[in-house]
């Protein structure tokens, strides 16, 4: 499934977008950055409530397809502008990480 289809299906609110034609092939959830770095497969949707600037670095270095912030988590302006500069697909949603994972899992399986 492509990022833009995922965004529309789950009504994710875009905070920053780059290549939304990119395929999402899986998912991962977690807030501890080294866990995500080590375990999040490439081309995944990463679901987290963490919203600091280090999230952007981890997402791009680990080749995550997009970051979905759960529970209406929104980063500050400095993080948002950096995400836009780097073309990171970053979304927020009122759903909990649990709900997002369940919906994503159903969509991808």
């Amino acid at each position, binding site marked *: 499934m492509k990022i833009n289809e995922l965004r529309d299906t789950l009504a994710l609110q875009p905070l920053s977008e780059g290549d939304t034609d990119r395929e999402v092939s899986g998912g991962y959830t977690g807030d*501890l950055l*080294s866990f995500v770095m*080590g375990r999040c497969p490439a081309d995944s949707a990463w679901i987290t409530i963490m919203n*600091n600037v280090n*999230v952007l670095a*981890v997402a*791009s*270095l680990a*080749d995550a397809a997009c970051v979905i912030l759960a529970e209406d988590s929104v980063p500050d302006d400095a993080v948002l502008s950096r995400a836009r500069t780097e073309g990171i697909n970053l979304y927020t949603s009122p759903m909990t990480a649990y709900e997002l994972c369940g919906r994503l899992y159903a969509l991808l399986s």
Partner: protein
Amino acid sequence: MSEPVRFHFDVAGENFVSAGEASATVKKLLRQLGVDPAVIRRVSIAMYEGEINMVIHANGGTADILVYTDRIVIVLEDHGPGIPNVGLAMQEGYSTAAENVRALGFGAGMGLPNMKRYTDSMDIETAVGRGTKITMEISL
């Protein structure tokens, strides 16, 4: 053996906003060199973890990346406190990270294990009170 392509970076300590910039730059440079994306991802993960460790635990340091035709070598060197017990530090879950950096999502104690896992070899030279030098290699 031809000369490697070299990149050098100074990594600032205690700066969590610029943390990861050296790794991000290396990722871009390796892309330009046409390195296999799967290899770039491994280099990125290993280098980021080492870079962040220098920021958090060692008040900064230097990163040198050497790209040979058959391998990529990452050398991270700092003059921080050193690692008293490398065996312990290498264990998943072991961390001495302070509360303020844990709040940012660091401190899972997974950085060094990730560096080992994503590289073909990893060597740690460290002396308490003097610093740490970590050399990692990824075959191409």
